[in-house]
């Protein structure tokens, strides 16, 4: 099959009585897995429901494997939609749940049960086949729901915040097993909706950032985190550093942290970079800094320690290298290759101000 497995073209999706997303277009390639990443309330779930046929598009089309399914009911689209909290049928056993999509397509009961058991083997749930689903744990429910979805042999699989309802200690395990299953399945396209940046970049080949009104950026995980398209995207991703400055049009960008190489036309720009692009170490007599930099806070996290530094009226965040006590004078080393320039917000934009406020 050539062409996109799933295509949404000029779609307008309503939220209640208003148009939430207008003229939305996206395409998912064959066997591609994408993540729709965005804040709560932006319309991610509505997009999924519209693709599944559970909500009607006000305008636009949905094509699956080249076939226009816009006017088709949900059951004829070849799309399976998995809710955030697995919706297993409580009146059926585990194996009956997994056999459900097979039986309603006319597969004989014994054959459907046999195939369902085989599917349960794949998710390591065969030993619980006869159990009531109400007695399962969150992780087990998730695996049964996934087995049932795969039993339906969908062309497109839609996962709505699939790991959000799981305990943190279970999440990574279930995510890895889900990815393993999806990789070994013949699903043409998978769309995962999430508001969690780490989850989106872990599960998807490509991430579409959905901000107010539409898709703000579509990129692979590495590209997205390294080169956010706009300041709004950078801020949504949680990139902590945004330094305003001037690009001179001759290949240089001047910021409160100094001057760095930057190709492009002259004008106001904002340099964005992650914490790991900025090394913070105690200042020595040999350091020649243009501005006094002092530590104003240190935060210890599982992923490492970060320090916040006040410099030239702004606050930046970086990785401390050695003891950097609060109030101490420090030197900053910026890895220029990891700095990305974006346009400053337009005056009409109502986004947060450039830089981070002092705490």
């Amino acid at each position, binding site marked *: 099959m050539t062409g996109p497995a799933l295509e949404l073209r000029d779609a307008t999706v309503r939220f209640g009585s208003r148009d939430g997303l207008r003229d939305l277009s996206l395409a998912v390639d064959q066997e591609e897995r994408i993540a729709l990443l965005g804040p709560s309330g932006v319309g991610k779930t509505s997009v999924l429901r519209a693709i599944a046929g559970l909500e009607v598009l006000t305008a636009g089309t949905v094509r699956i494997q080249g076939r226009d399914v816009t006017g088709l009911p*949900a*059951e004829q689209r070849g799309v399976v939609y*998995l*809710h955030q909290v697995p*919706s297993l*049928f409580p*009146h059926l056993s585990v194996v009956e749940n997994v056999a459900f999509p097979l039986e*309603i397509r006319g597969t004989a009961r014994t054959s459907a049960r046999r195939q369902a058991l085989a599917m349960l083997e794949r998710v390591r749930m065969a030993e619980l086949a006869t159990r009531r689903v109400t007695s399962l744990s969150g992780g087990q429910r998730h695996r049964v729901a996934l087995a049932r979805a795969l039993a339906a042999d969908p062309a497109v699989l*839609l996962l709505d915040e699939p790991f959000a309802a799981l305990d943190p200690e279970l999440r990574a395990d279930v995510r890895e097993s889900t990815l393993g299953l999806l990789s070994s399945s013949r699903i043409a396209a998978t769309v995962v909706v999430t508001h969690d940046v780490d989850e989106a970049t872990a599960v998807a080949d490509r991430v579409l950032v959905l901000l107010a009104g539409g898709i703000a950026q579509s990129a692979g995980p590495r590209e997205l985190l390294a080169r956010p398209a706009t300041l709004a995207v950078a801020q949504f991703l949680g990139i902590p550093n945004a330094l305003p400055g001037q690009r001179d049009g001759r290949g240089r960008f001047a910021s409160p942290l100094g001057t760095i190489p930057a190709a492009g036309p002259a004008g106001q720009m904002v340099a964005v970079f992650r914490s790991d692009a900025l090394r913070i170490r105690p200042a020595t007599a040999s350091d020649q800094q243009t501005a006094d930099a002092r530590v104003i806070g240190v935060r210890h996290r599982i992923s490492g320690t970060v320090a916040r530094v006040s410099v030239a009226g702004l606050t930046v965040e970086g990785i401390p290298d050695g003891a950097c006590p609060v109030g101490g004078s420090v030197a900053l080393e910026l890895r220029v290759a990891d700095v990305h320039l974006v346009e400053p917000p337009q005056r009409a934009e109502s986004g947060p101000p450039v830089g981070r406020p002092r705490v």
Partner: protein
Amino acid sequence: MDRTSRVVFAVLLIVVAAPALALVIRALGPVWFFPNIVPSGNAVQRFTEDFGGGRLWRAAGTSVALATLTGAGGTVLALIAARSLARARRGLRHVAEAGALLPVVMPPIALGVGVHVLALQLHVSGSLVGVLGAHLIPAAGYVTLYLLGVFSAYEWALEDEARTLGAGRVQVWTRVTLPLLRARLAEAVLLGALVSWGQLALTLVVGGGAVRTLPVELLAFLRSGDDHLAAVAALLLSIPPAAGVAVLARGMRSTGGVV
């Protein structure tokens, strides 16, 4: 429970239980009419004999048939209405809830007059069909309100998921909705049947005396001053509601009151 609460509870129990106790004593106690020297038997014997005569058999049969049809028909109507309303916009839902409440809160005699006018227009006044239609109105109202409560706790995602798994609308009904709601629908049928079972005003007004149900015959006993038989008929009339309440309570306990 403190002392005051215990006293209040005891008073309430007496107020509720006293009429029921009097009814049982009257129904099962001896029948002793003047100028008999000794009691001529008890009310149950007379009642059984009268049943053998056919009048009360027919009335009971009519009541059972009406209650069954009202329970089933009212539940079908209420299921469709409540299901749609539960997913409707809030404003529309409030209006419809008020509409469902209307036949419940209206005095039955006032409702009966309105229904009677309609029944006359439709030429079903004085017929079983007319009375069935009349019973369906409050029954559907009660059951709709009951099912609205059920649907407020209903997991709609199950139906959505079933559809994307390939189930058509009919399959969603037969394989998901109805099995999930089976217990609640049985209770709804019971509720609708009980509304019909005790209905007197509507039956009298729309049935015009031609449709003889147990409450109608009970009224006839009272009018003729035969309060022994009236007590036995009342006892008989009370058994299904008592059993129904027990079944409903058991159902609520077994599911924790959720769908």
